[in-house]
């Protein structure tokens, strides 16, 4: 633990890394080169579903400047299938390029390595492919029906997983309730679309049969294991580096692309670089699952919730790597901060002829929260209750913490009612309600939206046992290394490469407090290097996990170094360890500050004058630590599991004004009150809340990967896949409560997703509130001006 006198944790310290970013001195994947570098380009399917009848690469291979062409057949001959994270029934062989069948528009079927990118792209036009188009299945419910076109005929179904999990007496509650609200909601495909696209450089050394990668992959631990298995080399001969990563949000992962580069590098004997273009990114990298949810919410007349029953269909596209991920995360967050005694979750995970779905900021929670928070708002309207009041009657309260939900999630701390009350105050809820009535009388359409959520951090992979019936990976953990160098300066590395979370600063703050130095004295390695960074399979930048695993790893490693520094100092000063403390860059005798040994002097002993060490003490000042979050447990006998850990929470209140002539929705005010426990650097925390909330706004109002009935993507550029701009959103006003987590070393909780989870629901609730007098019910997203205009009677 940090000493009470810790000075740096909690400070809004400007970021070290920002100094290089403002000068354009970040080092991103596409900024890197290698000697004799080749460039790759990929040929992608124009069909949503087709058989590859013939692929003739001869003309492309003969082009000047082309060094290699790799087809799906080559890939299947030279590499193994890609190992899924979740080995479901859909564990069919899947290679890095499509072999004999394409299953979504944009699926890569061949790749070219050439002396430059333009030559590689020119060569793609000389690849001759003959396709036999097959019927495509685009809608997940259609894909579930008998007789639907099958992505994998050998599976006999498109349904990867179907199960019903019941916790408590749901049927009894539905039967005895004063009422049951039944509603059907849908969510679209969208993605956080980091501004830097995905990419990789692969290099092969035939002398040692080893591969080296540079990539902005955000989950290196898992990726290394996939690469080694597919390439048939031990993990000890796969080295992977991450440079600065230009945003990730879950999207930055596709081992297949790294494998393509690796196979081209091995074939040519030269390093190969590939950087995704934006159309490839939007068409083929990763979308959040679209889906539909049928909700039944049983209640007493006073609004007390009795049971929640959900039927959830998740459209995975062609996701063979992580199917059911959205389902399991929804299951863990189904209660959304409310006391709901009985829960049923029936889920389908379904393959369709669309882009693979995968991790996207919040994974499934934005839809789960949308469904619950829409249902709560509709229930309040049905009961004639204020939507805030209905929520306040049903929250888990502070004195009930820690609280275990029916599905096994544990809310560790927090005050959900106080969070909403603070948000209502900051928003001036009463004032806007009055203004709304006045505006309505004047023909203006103002709407107020409230939505609240829990925000977990860390993923316990044991939850996949619910799907697979056996445990493979489990728990939630991260690794760190802290080393005092021979000159007394400190170096730290972490198995989680930052993609904008400011680790070089916040980790330096943590270590500075542990070792009694300034953050300037602590250099935190940029990115990741598997040869020098401690890591494990679970390592990476995902699942909001920094606060609940990484911090523990850093604190643990620093504590070991700290203990050793004190032992060395005690020996040198001939004093008891307990009489020493580390501060101001030295080991100092308590009560006698003149008796001190600088850390640089202790480092000299540890590395140079090693005979001066205490008897039995090893030379050196370096420690590794892996922190395992203690909340992670296996699935229990009643199929309860903590699929995620450590719960922050947030309340959003926003005001929209709708232009009755055009249907345009203007967000006028947006207030977020959140509680992520102890804030390690409030500057970072507040920025996360802003950005995450705007992701939620984008999902609510603008963003949609829209497919036509043949599986063609209609929104594959930023001209038609619309992101929020500075002119589209208001200033997000942020306030906070601070209930430290009792289970993380510094009391911090996750903060990256607390905007993206309730944001879509908050905005939807506001739009509906503006139009409720017309009988409008918002059941799907995004809410476009055209939709609003139709609700207003336009045609």
């Amino acid at each position, binding site marked *: 633990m940090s000493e009470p006198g810790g000075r740096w944790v909690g400070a809004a310290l*400007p*970021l070290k*890394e*920002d*100094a*290089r*970013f*403002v*000068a*354009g*001195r*970040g*080092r*991103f994947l*596409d*900024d890197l080169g290698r000697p004799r570098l080749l460039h790759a380009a990929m040929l992608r399917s124009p069909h949503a579903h087709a058989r590859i009848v013939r692929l003739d690469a001869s003309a492309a291979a003969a082009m000047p400047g082309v060094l290699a062409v790799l087809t799906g057949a080559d890939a299947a001959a030279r590499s193994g299938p890609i190992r899924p994270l979740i080995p479901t029934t859909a564990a069919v062989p899947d290679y890095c390029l499509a072999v004999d069948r394409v299953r979504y528009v944009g699926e890569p079927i061949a790749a070219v390595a050439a002396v430059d990118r*333009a030559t590689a792209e020119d060569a793609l036009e000389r690849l001759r492919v003959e396709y036999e188009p097959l019927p495509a299945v685009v809608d997940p419910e259609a894909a579930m029906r008998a007789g639907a076109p099958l992505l994998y005929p050998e599976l006999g179904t498109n349904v990867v997983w179907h199960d019903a999990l019941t916790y408590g007496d749901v049927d009894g509650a539905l039967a005895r309730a004063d009422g049951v609200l039944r509603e059907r909601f849908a969510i679209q495909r969208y993605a*956080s*679309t*980091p*501004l*830097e*696209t995905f990419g990789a450089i692969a290099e092969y050394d035939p002398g040692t049969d080893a591969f080296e990668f540079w990539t902005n992959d955000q989950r290196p631990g898992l990726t290394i294991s996939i690469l080694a298995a597919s390439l048939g080399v031990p993990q000890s001969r796969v080295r992977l580096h991450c440079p*600065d*990563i*230009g*945003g*990730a*949000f879950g999207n930055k992962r596709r081992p297949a692309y790294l494998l393509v580069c690796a196979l081209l590098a091995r074939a040519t004997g030269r390093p190969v670089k590939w950087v995704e*273009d*934006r*159309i490839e990114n939007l068409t083929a990298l990763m979308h959040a699952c679209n889906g539909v949810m049928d909700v039944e919410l049983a209640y007493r007349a006073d609004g007390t919730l009795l049971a929640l029953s959900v039927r959830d269909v998740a459209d995975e596209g062609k996701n063979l790597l992580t199917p059911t991920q959205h389902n399991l995360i929804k299951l863990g967050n189904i209660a959304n901060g409310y006391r709901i005694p009985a829960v049923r979750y029936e889920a389908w995970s379904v393959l369709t002829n669309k882009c693979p779905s995968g991790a996207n900021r919040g994974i499934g929670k934005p839809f789960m929260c949308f469904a619950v928070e829409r249902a709560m708002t509709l229930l309040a309207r049905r009961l004639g209750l204020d939507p805030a009041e209905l929520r306040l009657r049903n929250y888990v309260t502070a004195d009930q913490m820690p609280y275990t939900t029916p599905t096994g999630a544990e809310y560790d701390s927090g005050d959900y009612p106080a969070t909403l009350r603070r948000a209502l105050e900051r928003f001036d809820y009463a004032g806007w309600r009055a203004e709304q009535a006045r505006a309505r009388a004047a023909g203006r359409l103002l709407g107020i939206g409230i939505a609240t959520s829990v925000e977990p951090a860390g993923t316990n992979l044991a939850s996949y046992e619910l799907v697979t019936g056996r445990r493979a990976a489990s728990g939630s953990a991260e690794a760190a290394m802290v080393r005092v160098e021979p000159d007394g300066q400190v170096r730290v590395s972490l198995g989680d490469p930052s*993609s*904008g*979370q*400011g680790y070089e600063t916040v980790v330096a703050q943590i270590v500075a407090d542990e070792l009694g130095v300034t953050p300037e004295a602590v250099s935190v390695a940029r990115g990741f290097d598997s040869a020098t960074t401690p890591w494990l399979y679970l390592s990476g930048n995902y699942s909001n996990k920094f606060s609940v695993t990484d911090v523990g790893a850093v604190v643990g490693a620093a504590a070991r170094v700290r203990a050793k520094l004190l032992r060395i100092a005690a020996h040198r000063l001939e004093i008891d360890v307990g009489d020493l403390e580390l501060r101001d860059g030295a080991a100092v005798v308590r009560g006698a500050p003149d008796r001190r040994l600088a850390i640089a002097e202790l480092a000299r002993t540890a590395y140079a004058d090693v005979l001066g060490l205490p008897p039995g003490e090893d030379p050196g000042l370096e420690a590794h630590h892996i922190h395992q979050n203690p909340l992670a447990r296996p699935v229990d006998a009643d199929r309860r599991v903590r699929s995620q850990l450590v719960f922050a929470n947030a309340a959003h209140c926003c005001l929209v004004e709708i232009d009755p002539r055009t249907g345009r929705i203007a967000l006028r005010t947006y207030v977020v009150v959140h509680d992520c426990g102890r804030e390690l650097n409030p*500057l*970072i925390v*507040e*920025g*996360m809340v*802003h*950005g*995450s*909330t*705007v*992701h939620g706004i984008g999902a609510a109002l603008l963003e949609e990967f829209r497919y036509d009935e043949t599986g063609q993507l209609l929104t594959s*550029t*930023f*001209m038609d896949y619309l*992101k*929020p*701009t*500075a*002119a*589209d*959103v208001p*200033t*997000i006003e942020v306030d906070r409560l601070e209930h430290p987590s009792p289970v993380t070393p510094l009391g911090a909780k996750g903060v990256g997703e607390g*905007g993206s989870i309730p944001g879509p629901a908050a905005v939807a609730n506001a739009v509906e509130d503006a139009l409720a007098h017309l009988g409008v019910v918002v059941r799907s997203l995004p809410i476009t001006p055209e939709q609003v205009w139709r609700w207003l009677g336009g045609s």
Partner: protein
Amino acid sequence: MTPAAPAERLRVRLTVNGETVEREVEARRSLADLLRDDLGLTGTHVGCEHGVCGACTVLVDGRSARSCLLLAVQLPGARVTTIEGLTPPGGLSPLQEAFRACHAMQCGFCTPGMIVASTELLAATPAPDEAAIREALAGNLCMCTGYVNIVRAVIRAAAPGGRP
């Protein structure tokens, strides 16, 4: 005049960050390609290559421009300024300092383009209000910050009299 073939190499001479640059480049190569690949000025980032995201924004003769949509060979005699040219030797400009002080970024990928666009705004409007800043930066996407701290940074860097 016969149009050049895409791979035909043409000679172009222009000024980049105050230095005269003369290169033979393929007709199809963009200004961003020239800056990043030939001149090593990797502070200019490429985010969409279709002129929407603004990551590649540079100044051409003092006006902001998408370097992904301009061909290098169409700019003979132009004066191009990149983020490297806006960075004083050995330090940061007041605008850059404001971006850092306000943490007006997270991943840092949009930041050079944002600073270039903000430079243009402040040159024309030394004390812009929030609405003017949001309008001026509407051509630059940031996926991380929700724009709040970027707007704050520009207000901080603006001349006194700028209204929040």
